[in-house]
């Protein structure tokens, strides 16, 4: 006869000294955990509720400007610095960590319309409606940290006066060229007081300009003739143009997929395009109820932030038709510019109420150092939530957002309008000869034509 029974000595299974950690034994046998799925579901539900409870996205406001904030630029070389320009010609450098002005760049007489920083983080370029273009030296880190009081205004390195007002400026990602938008597109060099190159396509004002992050010679502009144009600096003429029903206010390139860009349109939607195929949008991002004023991609390329005239900031997935997040406060007015921070964890918005606002990119994210165990727990809850997100209760909790009354009403109205349009279209189709009316998909509906 051979026999063995389970025998556990207490010493082996408990700690020796009270300072020791408690010993943990694992057995992942599913039979020991009955009703796993129900338990997971309850965990997911709790996680969804907790996420709602901890959603406190607003970090703080930065006031100092005395007129509406019109444009911003982030310093690619310095994480916590951000430049902002206002309608009264004030340009400021802010320290995001302390939320204070570090430096002022006085000089502009009218509204500052464009700000950009060279890729090495040395030169700041500002331009405005006073027809001047100013180059500034970006103060080094040490000054930023040390004293705020003494000498906090800079002198420009150069001031170029040009024949027309400027609407925007953007620096090349690799190289020392930068481009301004105005009556035409001008390409400038750091060292010259005249543009090195100029492009013109039609007589309308170019309102925004953005260089491609992958191909340094490629740039996209939007103009007041409702067009989006693509330019190549190596060619003597502009490359492509697509005309839409409504004006595009701003453009942002996807930094991870540089062939794609998203255009912030006046009709309240954003349109993601592939440069190689401009006859249809890749994705239409709807949710804003008024024109979208500015757009900026996250450095990860997976999401972008938009600021709108409806006094809200929204975050979209790069391929999602609707926003994942919506930020608003009672005091925030029309949002004119938004930026994603270089570490993809904050959002800065500048609005008509003269303030810059700092938001968390993930509303319920825990700031500060997170212990490994805590992090693991967060990851687990995220995974569980993701697994059960299609269940109605969890979906409802995750999707719910409190909207300000005007936006809520406008959303409702827009829904009614689109519904009635759809109904009308259906009826028109039903009463016409079959095939005579073609249903245009949403992705091409707002495009008038493509010009080469």
């Amino acid at each position, binding site marked *: 006869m051979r026999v063995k*029974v389970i025998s556990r000595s207490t010493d082996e299974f408990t700690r020796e000294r009270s300072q020791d950690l408690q010993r943990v034994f694992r057995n992942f046998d*599913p039979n020991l955990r*009955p009703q796993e799925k129900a338990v997971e579901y309850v965990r997911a539900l709790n996680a969804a509720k907790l996420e709602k409870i901890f959603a406190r996205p607003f970090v703080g406001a930065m006031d100092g400007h005395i007129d509406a904030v019109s444009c911003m630029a982030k310093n690619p070389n310095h994480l916590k610095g951000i430049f902002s320009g206002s309608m009264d010609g004030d340009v400021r450098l802010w320290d995001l960590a302390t939320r204070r002005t570090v430096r002022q760049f006085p000089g502009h007489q009218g509204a500052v319309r464009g700000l950009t920083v060279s890729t090495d983080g040395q030169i700041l370029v500002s331009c405005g409606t006073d027809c001047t273009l100013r180059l500034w030296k970006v103060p080094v880190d040490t000054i930023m940290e040390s004293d705020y009081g003494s000498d906090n205004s800079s002198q420009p390195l150069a001031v170029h006066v040009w024949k027309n007002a400027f609407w925007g400026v953007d620096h090349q990602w690799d190289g020392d060229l930068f481009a301004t938008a105005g009556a035409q597109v001008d390409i400038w060099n750091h060292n010259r007081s005249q543009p090195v190159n100029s492009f013109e396509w039609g007589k309308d004002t170019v309102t925004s300009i953005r260089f491609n992050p992958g191909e340094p010679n490629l740039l996209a502009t939007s103009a007041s003739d409702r067009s989006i144009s693509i330019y190549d600096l190596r060619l003597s003429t502009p490359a492509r143009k697509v005309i839409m029903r409504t004006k595009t206010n701003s453009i942002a390139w996807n930094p991870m997929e540089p062939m794609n860009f998203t255009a912030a349109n006046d009709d309240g939607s954003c349109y993601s395009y592939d440069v190689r195929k401009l006859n249809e949008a890749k994705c239409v991002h709807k949710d804003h109820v008024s024109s979208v004023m500015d757009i900026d991609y996250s450095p990860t390329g997976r999401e972008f932030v938009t600021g709108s005239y409806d006094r809200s900031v929204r975050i979209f997935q790069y391929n999602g038709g609707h926003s994942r997040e919506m930020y608003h406060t009672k005091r925030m007015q029309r949002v004119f510019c938004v930026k994603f921070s270089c570490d993809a964890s904050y959002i800065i918005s500048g609005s008509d109420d003269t303030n810059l606002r700092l938001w968390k990119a993930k509303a319920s994210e825990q700031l500060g150092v997170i212990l490994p165990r805590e992090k693991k727990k967060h990851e687990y809850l995220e995974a569980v939530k993701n697994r059960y997100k299609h*269940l109605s209760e969890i979906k409802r909790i995750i999707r719910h957002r409190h909207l300000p009354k005007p936006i809520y009403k406008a959303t409702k109205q827009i829904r009614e309008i689109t519904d009635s349009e759809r109904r009308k279209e259906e009826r028109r189709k039903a009463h016409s000869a079959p095939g005579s009316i073609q249903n245009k998909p949403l992705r091409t509906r707002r495009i008038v034509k493509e010009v080469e």
Partner: protein
Amino acid sequence: MVVKVEKIIPSKNITDTDEVISEEMDMKKKKYLRGEGANLKELKDKKLQGQLAVKEELYGKSATAAAKAEKWLMPTEGGYLEADGIEKTWRIKQDTIASEVDILSSRKQFDIVLPDFGPYTLEFTPSGRYMAAAGRKGHIAIVDMQNMKAIKELQVRETVRDVVFLHNELFFAAAQKKYPYIYNRDGTELHCLKEHGAVLKLQFLRNHFLLASINKFGQLRYQDVTTGQMVANIRTGLGRTDVMEVNPFNGVVAVGHSGGTVSMWKPTSAAPLVKMLCHPGPITALTFHPNGHLMATAGMERKIKIWDLRKFEVLQTLPGHSKALDFSQKGLLATATGSFVQVFGDLSGSQNYSRYMTHSVAKGYQVKKVTFRPYEDVLGIGHSMGWSSILIPGSGEPNFDSWVANPFETSKQRREKEVRSLLEKLPPESIMLDPTKIGSVRPERKKEKPTKEDIEAQMEAAIEAAKNIPMKKKTKGRSKPSKIAKKKQEAVEKAKKPFMEQHTNKRKLTEETHLPKSLERFVRKKTAA
């Protein structure tokens, strides 16, 4: 050539051992896979198909990782009892086992004689550390089984029919003469649950924090012990019984009745989920396998039946009377009748239970309850003269999980676990026959309409049947051939009628559907009835 042969042989050996290892791994992995993967080929959505394929691969990987980690995470090996030669395992006495095993284990074999308060019923906490024993005549004891210390003994001075632990060892409920009561570990009465009435059997649903009871009048009640809310009050309508057990797999409560039926209940429906006739006579005992697929029932007609709950079929019928039944964690089945305890085991691994061990408590003792101690090779026996504990090698799960049930739990860990389990308290709606359905998508249900041919064939058959109805001989003049023919014609018309109606209905519908689209909106909508 010779050299070549030599070369081949060792390589062959290596592949053999590899195969053995991989087979073992597959066996282990199967446990963690939790059933078959989804059939992705049937999906039309390519994107979803891709996403699910990635998920399935991940599941496979995690199962492999868990199977591999078993070697390190689960160091303790299970118990066993093997007979040599012509020796039989069921002839081996407890004394022989006690002499073979280590001292620590042999101490787990004992008899407590308490002749005055007898028959005793026992209950272990899920970690197997604490035991509650309740004598019919009012003696309740909470015992720490690790150091064999009585934590609390109390005499309630009235009949005690059953005792259960609540979510941890600090609280227990006792079914007494008129009402069930909740006590804490110090023996202080916390609650008197008057609404339950005179309860015969109590069960606690650990994940749901529900206390289920069945009373003298066959009323099944569920009470949430965290809020005190009475979740359900169900009249079973099948008479008085004290055979009730929770299926640990899904939380469904099964009640065995005197009519031989077993009914299964959930708190959210007043009708039983399942009502199965298991025995021709009254049911004396009932228990569930921890994996929830097997149920054992014992009837008054000296039969013990093992049921497959996935098909609701008898797997095996064992002879013998049984007053008490219990499945161990590893699937051994203990039965008791009179003073005789028998343990059946699925030794071949093919769900064929055969005799494994037997034990007789002292003659004249009447066994009331048998229950395996979790995570130990121990069977607790409650009988008319106290309680006993015997060793059944191979009955318990050798490796415990500290986060599930920890026999060495400290008070701090217990407190933390209490909070955790309260946060994860399941709603009563999550009790259902197949709990794996939670979170899955309901398949599309298409109503299959009978085709025209089917309807015609049915009509033909109905007409044929109508024609063949034999005619009675009636009084003079009423059985004339003409009358008979007329009657037959009428019967045929009558048989046709329902099918014709169906036909006409269908035509009406098709008229609507064939309208041009522009006119559809003018069709009168059906009034909501």
